[in-house]
């Protein structure tokens, strides 16, 4: 175990992004149900029908992986079971 500040900053951002997603989930689900979204700083900066396309879009725009949280937004009444 060791402590590294950059990782802590990224983890804090992830907690914030998840809290924002939870608070706004109904609206986001209406707009992006069954899509993958990239979240950062209380907004969705990119979305696509699947992760492959989303990662490609982010790469094309030069957006760093660490700056976004990628989430699949299930459609209404969809429950994901692994």
């Amino acid at each position, binding site marked *: *175990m060791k402590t*590294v500040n950059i990782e802590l900053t990224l*983890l804090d951002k992830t907690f914030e992004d998840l809290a924002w*997603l939870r608070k706004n989930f109904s609206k986001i689900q209406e707009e992006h149900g069954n899509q993958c979204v990239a979240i950062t700083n209380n907004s969705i900066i990119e979305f696509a029908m699947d992760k492959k396309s989303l*990662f490609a879009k982010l790469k094309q725009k030069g957006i760093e*992986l*660490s700056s976004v*949280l990628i989430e699949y937004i299930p459609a209404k009444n969809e*429950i994901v079971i*692994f």
Partner: protein
Amino acid sequence: MKIKVLTFLPEAKTTYLNIPVVLKSPRSGFMRVKAIIDTGSPETIIGYEEAMALQIPFSNVATEKFINLGGSKYAASTFNRLTMIFKDEEEKAVQESINVCVLKPTSDKQKMQGFSLLLGTDFLRERGYKLFCDMKNDLAYLEK
């Protein structure tokens, strides 16, 4: 040392055990994901697209086994020692490394959209974590 586990997902009516994690790749830096603790899985599994984006060098590894996930069978390779960073209750970073399975989709239908990282029982066993879980009171954590 305790790591708080979240007991909700934004889909407010569903409850999963999940933890924010930072994944560290020597080739492409960091990735922020939400890991799901899956006590029904004996293996820790990273999503295929996440593995590709992190440039995890699994493509040179021959398929070692097949994993049946959600009724679909996937070809699986192992990547040795993926580094994960968690935050404990004292706000300190906790770094762990473990072998992870990368599942390769064999058809367009197998997209594995729903998760980025599944932490299986191998993670709990190998890294020595106890999982405490009280879903009714929204209380869960990993402890060692």
